[in-house]
């Protein structure tokens, strides 16, 4: 799961959707990898206004990125270094193992081998009849 994705994720439990405690979800035991991707400066410039900045700062600190400014950089502050730093954090950094925890209901979502699973208990363990003809 990429860091940018976590800025667009909340708890799957319906009752949590309206709770500010459910966003962002909190990382636990996160293991990271960096995957080098070509910088797309136009993309970073244009995605920045869409990002919930305080949530991103929270996520970044949980993952050990402590140099993010506390307020969203203004367009004129987006020099080459800032663009590269944001690119690295948002799209190159992936959480490969760990958990995402809801601050409202406490539900933990697993991330394993890079893939998060947001199925809820009621989606799982259904006794399956055979799908065959």
């Amino acid at each position: 799961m990429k860091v940018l994705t976590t800025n667009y994720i909340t708890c799957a439990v319906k009752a949590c959707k309206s709770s500010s405690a459910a966003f962002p979800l909190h990382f636990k035991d996160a293991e990271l990898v960096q995957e080098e991707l070509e910088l797309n400066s136009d993309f970073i410039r244009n995605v920045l206004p869409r990002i919930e900045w305080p949530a991103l700062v929270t996520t970044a600190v949980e993952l050990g990125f402590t140099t993010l400014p506390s307020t969203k950089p203004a367009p004129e502050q987006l020099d080459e270094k800032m663009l590269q730093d944001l690119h690295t954090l948002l799209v190159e950094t992936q959480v490969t193992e760990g958990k995402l925890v809801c601050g409202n209901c406490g539900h933990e979502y697993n991330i394993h081998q890079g893939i998060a699973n947001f199925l809820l208990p009621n989606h799982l363990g259904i006794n399956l009849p055979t799908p065959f003809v």
Partner: protein
Amino acid sequence: MSAKPFAAVAPEQYEAAHVHQVYQQIASHFSATRFKPWPIVDRFLREMPTGSVGLDIGCGNGKYLNVNPNIYMVGSDRSSNLVQIAYDRKLIHDSFVADALDLPHPTGRFDFAISIAVIHHFSSPERRVASIKSIISALKPGPTGQGGKALIYVWALEQNNSRRGWDEGHSQDVFVPWVLSKQYIKAGSESVKKDSTLDAEANEEGKPQAKEVTYQRYYHLYRKGELEADVAAAGGYVLESGYEKDNWWVICGIVG
């Protein structure tokens, strides 16, 4: 074959058997047949402004996740085996496992969403409307041209030019077979054992060996106008709609 989704089984359980489990089993074979983006979907994604953030609900093998490198897409699918295929392709975008009726997304933040050949797998009218509501409530609200946009595709009842031969008057709830060919059957897997009596030949040890396995997927075939009506029932508005190659599609939004 006509399917009866309103029997004694709860829709969740019905879909688990006739949709989720089938896609888990056929994921590799299904993915191998799904690589060419449909033109209307392709255009919808390419026209999104740089920096747009969107969803692909029921992303399957992720074939739409790399159409436009200047946007960001978050794909999800109920089948972990299909998500694994999407993930392994190392796309610039992201994907995970989620249920379309319980998406882990905040409301009102997305510039766009696509859901291609997905909501026709829900087996009750209420669940189909709920799935559209789930998708459009993730969009930025706003009147025509100002809010986020969702492109939704479903299979049409009116397919009189296709080999399947469905058309007006046919049952809308059907089973559609997927014949899983031999090379995609995992040796010793549960599926082979379960089905070996149906389509099997004896190998030299005299044990049955499956040649192929036929799975039945449940579909609700949409009739003309039904998709637009479901969007309205979900609280959305239709911007554009049409018919393309056995499918009905809409581009829709939500006022909020």
